[in-house]
């Protein structure tokens, strides 16, 4: 996935400034950076939810604006930061929407198989027939991700999906995403709030600040005290434990 000279301006404020990026295929890439850095805006442009002012974005060699809506929906899926559905649907019904690009609502055997697989992957077997408005925030978040999974795309973009999850489910979800990359060869791009999750699970990290990409490298190169201190403008301790780097970022 290539991003070339992509910019976005809101009322004279350039929130994404001429970003150039080459995201590695079949890798888990985490986007980090302070609030308002432009991460969500960039992801929205990558998935065509938001029109870019200028620049090009290529997936599998083609510029994203050349794709038909349905074709793009089979290649790339995005889950935004907040989703509000005020509909009475069961978990299975919502996950089934993930098959819409393929079957337009007339589900085939194959669709049903992928829906059940997605439910199982996210540990939702027991909740499948529950109404989504009866679920906790974290459970609902897993349902959305199951829907994205049922969409069976090569590229999966997730904007802060861990927000509503407790630690155990957050870690579980990251493991699921790792498996998607390692076993199914998917390309996962995820915005993470907590740099420790990025440090533990990501292959590569993109650090954004004030609309620009300030670092893009393999995880070990980005999780370094000087890099993080500058990025977040605070004093961050980086320590190593069991071969992984961890960050302590409580302001003293």
């Amino acid at each position, binding site marked *: 996935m290539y991003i070339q000279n992509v910019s976005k301006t809101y009322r004279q404020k350039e929130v994404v400034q001429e970003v150039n990026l080459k995201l590695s295929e079949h890798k888990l890439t985490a986007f980090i950076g302070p609030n308002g850095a432009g991460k969500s805006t960039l992801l929205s442009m990558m998935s065509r939810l938001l029109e870019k002012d200028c620049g090009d974005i290529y997936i599998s060699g083609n510029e994203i604006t050349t794709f038909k809506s349905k074709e793009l929906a089979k290649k790339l899926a995005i889950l935004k930061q907040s989703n*509000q*559905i005020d509909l009475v649907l069961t978990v299975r019904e919502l996950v089934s929407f993930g098959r819409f690009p393929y079957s337009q*609502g007339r589900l085939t055997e194959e669709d049903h198989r992928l829906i059940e697989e997605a439910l199982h992957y996210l540990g939702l077997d027991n909740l499948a027939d529950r109404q989504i408005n009866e679920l906790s925030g974290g459970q609902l978040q897993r349902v959305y991700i199951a829907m994205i999974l049922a969409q069976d795309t090569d590229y999966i973009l997730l904007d802060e999906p861990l927000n509503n999850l407790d630690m155990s489910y957050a870690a579980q979800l990251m493991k699921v995403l790792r498996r998607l990359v390692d076993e199914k060869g998917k390309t996962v791009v995820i915005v993470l709030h907590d740099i420790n999750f990025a440090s533990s699970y990501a292959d590569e990290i993109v650090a954004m600040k004030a609309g620009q990409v300030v670092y893009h490298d393999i995880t070990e190169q980005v999780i370094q005290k000087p890099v993080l201190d500058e990025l977040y403008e605070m004093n961050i301790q980086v320590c190593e434990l069991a071969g992984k780097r961890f960050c302590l970022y409580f302001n003293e």
Partner: protein
Amino acid sequence: MKKGILLIGLMIAAVSSLFIGVHSIPITDLFHLNVQQEFILWQTRIPRTVSLMIAGATASVSGLIMQHLTQNKFVSPTTVGTMDSARLGILVTMLYFPTASILTRSVVAFIFALTGTLLFMWLLQKMSLKNPIMVPLLGIMFGNVIGSFVTFIAYKKQLIQNISTWLEGNFATVTKGDYELIYLSVPLLIVAYLYAYPLTVSGLGEDLAINLGLNYRLVQLIGMTIVALASSVTLVTVGTLPFLGIIIPNIISVYYGDQMKETLAITAVAGSLFLILCDIIARVVIFPYEVSVSLIVSILGSLIFIYLLWKGVNK
């Protein structure tokens, strides 16, 4: 509540509706009706019952579609200005084409209805209201602005008598020869059924819908066109039926969920049933006279609506 029971209920209510009225036509006489009874049956009773069934189904399905398009459960063509805009269209035909046929009137009403609905949707997008209760309130205000304008012009041009007949649904005047346009709603309901799944996807919200490869704008436009056409046709043939479009889909949603493919048919059946029952009440409550069905729909509808709102707020 089984779907079959509603369907059987509808059939019983429809048949009863045929045999209630000032002129007694006992159901036991069905196979040896005299000339006058036969005339009444074909001339007024059947047209009335059929138009009630279609209008009830159309109003509730239109409400269901609007709710998915706006992602708000308290919205219907009577609360977002669709109906008021259609009425403005009718006023315009009265002023400028007083001899226009019922078909021409419907077409003009449709153009106004669609424009009004698009305007409301545009307002909604501009304002990005956070509180779901604000959406129907905005719609009602928007509708009232157009409605007051219509009343004002009608008053100035001394058309107030004519325009007020369009204000409330009236099935007493439905007779063979002047209601058949309402049959146009039937193919519209079928088109709505064909688009039920995409319409539900659009109800997930713009971002999720686009992510799923839906042509969001197009589906919204198709939905609004169906609603505007159906509303105009209902308006010119029988008038406005308040609340129906909100309460029926909400009640059905409690029992059968919001997957429109599953609920559209039963919403239509329930709408027909509710309207026929209201009409039967309207016909017997001060027998041998009758009150307007709109009155009964409004009384029952507003009570149920307040109950639903209250439940919605306390969720």
